[in-house]
């Protein structure tokens, strides 16, 4: 009788163990879960509730007096619209350029600043580099337009001094994307640097001592201690950058003009113009949904890549 009841007990234990274990954990981590509560409430109200509006992508909300469900029609229109496809192409190109040219710079800058000897100079450089981030895009756009003016801008003065003709950067389709990326770098590089600099403090200082003992010089320490130490931060920053890079909007809105629409109209400016301002809200939301899905694919892809090659899942 003991045997069978033992077996019965064991079976019972196994069946209830999963859910019982779960609730036991929940009770054990009451404090942690409580800490999550304010944030979670915030997310529900201000992120997930509005997300219900994504369903409007399948309607023609805003466009006619009565809202009607139109299924995938908005999406069909997206793919057959030349303006949308141009905006999509521009978005991809500009995003790609931003990631490739912007992303490594804060890392390099942080490492270089780390190599300076004087703390005072380090802090000064950090400060200076971060200043442009304080400016909103409206100011940055105006600053760049002034600097690049063919008649009075300083860049063209230098070009003229070397004997070349002035270039109208802001209106030249060949240069404008570069200007967008350049102004993006100018404004944001300090921002990225701050995060890496802050993370440098988590590198275990004993590792540096060990490296010295092993005979590593400055380069050795940078490549073998510092860089690996901030590796996970780099991966996370890459992922975070990729997640929102397709949403570039305000920068383009304040800087572009009719001469460069074809190379700089992006998904969000297109949606703004033909969606929101045209009262075609369903269409605007379908563009948002499309952009979100592409971002999701990019993020998941990067995460998988990081898992495979860097042995680290970022999320």
């Amino acid at each position, binding site marked *: 009788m003991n045997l069978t009841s033992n077996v019965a007990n064991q079976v019972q234990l196994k069946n209830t163990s999963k859910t019982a274990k779960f609730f036991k954990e929940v009770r054990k981590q009451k404090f942690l879960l409580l800490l999550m509560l304010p944030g979670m409430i915030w997310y529900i109200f201000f992120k997930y509730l509005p997300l219900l509006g994504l369903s409007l992508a399948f309607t023609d909300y805003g466009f006619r*007096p009565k809202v009607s469900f139109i299924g995938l029609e908005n999406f069909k229109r997206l793919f057959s619209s030349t303006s949308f496809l141009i905006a999509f192409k521009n978005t991809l190109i500009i995003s790609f350029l931003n990631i490739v040219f912007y992303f490594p710079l804060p890392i390099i800058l942080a490492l270089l600043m780390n190599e300076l000897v004087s703390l005072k100079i380090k802090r000064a450089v950090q400060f200076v580099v971060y200043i442009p981030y304080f400016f909103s895009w409206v100011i940055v756009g105006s600053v760049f337009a002034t600097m690049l003016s063919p008649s009075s801008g300083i860049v063209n003065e230098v070009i003229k001094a070397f004997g070349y003709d002035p270039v109208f950067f802001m209106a030249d389709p060949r240069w404008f994307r570069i200007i967008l990326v350049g102004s993006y770098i100018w404004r944001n590089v300090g921002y990225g640097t701050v995060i890496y600099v802050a993370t440098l403090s988590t590198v275990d200082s004993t590792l540096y001592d060990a490296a010295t003992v092993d005979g590593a010089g400055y380069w050795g320490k940078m490549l073998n201690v510092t860089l690996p130490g901030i590796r996970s931060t780099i991966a996370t920053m890459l992922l975070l950058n990729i997640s929102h890079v397709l949403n570039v909007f305000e920068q383009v809105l304040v800087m572009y003009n009719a001469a460069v629409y074809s190379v700089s109209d992006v998904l969000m400016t297109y949606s703004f113009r033909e969606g929101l301002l045209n009262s075609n809200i369903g269409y605007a939301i379908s563009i948002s949904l499309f952009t979100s899905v592409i971002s999701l694919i990019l993020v998941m892809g990067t995460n998988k890549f990081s898992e495979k090659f860097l042995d680290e899942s970022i999320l």
Partner: protein
Amino acid sequence: MKSSSRVLSIVMALTMISATFAGCGKSTAGSGPAATATATATAETKKEIVNLTVCLPDQQWGTSRDSDLQSEVVKTIEEKTNTKINAIIPPQGSYKEKVAILVSSGDIPDVFRVMQAMSLLPGYAVRGQILPLDEYIKKSPVLSKIDKSAFDYINVDGKKYYLPKLIPLTKNLWLRKDVADKNGVNLSVNPTTDQFYTEMKKIAGSGVIPFSFPKFIDNFRFFYNAFGVYDGIYQKDGKFVDGFQVPETKDALEYITKLYKDGIIDKEFITTENAVMREKLSNGKAALDIDYANRYIYYIGESNKFKVPTEFLPINTLVGPKGKLGNLNEAIQDAYVVGAKCKNPQRAVDFIEFLGYSEEGIKLDNLGIQGKHYVVENGVGKASEKASNAGYIWNSGFTILLPIKLNNLGFKWDEATEKGMPQQVKLYEASTKFNGPSYANPAGISDAFDKVSPSIKSTREEIATKVVLGTLSADGGIAEYAKFWKSIGGDDILKELNSKMTTK
């Protein structure tokens, strides 16, 4: 229909539930829709205080952006119209966006102003977002006197959906007399395109920008008119056509390109804001600009401020090789409308009548309150410092464009303005002689057109800009536009517009 309304009601229900849980926000007084209004339409309700949500840009409430002064203006209007006003005062530069959000989210204000009315108004009417005002206009002695033609431009099932704010505007080219004399430039008010080119060329290379132009490509219409071109979708002889795709467009574009290439049009026009363009003309850095016909007084004053005073000569229109001419073709640029959710349309119209069509209201709108916005010393009016520190516009130009005549301002303008006003009035009236036909965006007729009309506009402007800047040849530009037109099924859109139009 069922599934979408279910979705919307789920969204609404959830937000309602969350609202009862939240309840943590503090609303300002009267921020909800008309809480205490009663909706009877008899004459006695004029005495009863009614809630109105009014959305007007921040330059309208006495033109000063100082929030204290604006509150004073709101209070005064409340007293005069017996209303409690929930004032929505977005910044002028983002007014369009704010109204778009308000209207699209269903939070339609009771009274609001539509700028660029010729493009946006038909859409609002067709979507049922604004109310027809015929019955209220008929009842009002003042409003029923408005010329019928003001309502002809925007025709949505024959009803009147708006009240114009200003009489339609024209633009002139304003020429500095001092630069003109210095370079021997002699231009009448309606020179031919060749004369214009030849004379203006004399200024090129002299260190002064011959023609300071703004980045808004609508201004190209000043040139298009000389070639008989209207670059939008409009009805020609009763049928809808795309005005950009006529053979004369090539000539027009080549003319503008010539002006740009030979240094007459400012090389940097594509990044020039209107304010910068005006500044250049006022301080002598440019000889010519393109601006509204009531700006004479403004430029006289500004050039004085910059210590380079001169006379300003207008050019009303250019006459093309085939004798065509014309000015802006905008129908109604600016209008007041009543939102569809308004519970007191009669009082809303009364409000508009006060602000836009009564001497008192117009003075409040454009001048503000005597003693606060401006003071009168020895019979001469002067802007107050508090108002001036926040963008106050002290300018007599507005008096010319009003739908009613102002009898008594209560003060005289300063000497220079008083001297120049008769000339301003004369110049303005002369400019109206050359107005071209007025068109409005054919919105609300065809779904296919409405969906893509912003892209049609932006592509057209993009191609025109590229041609003028030299990136594309005129032929290349026209070919590219034709390609775009085909890709959106432009001809089918025209067919739909035409067929739906005849069934109306």
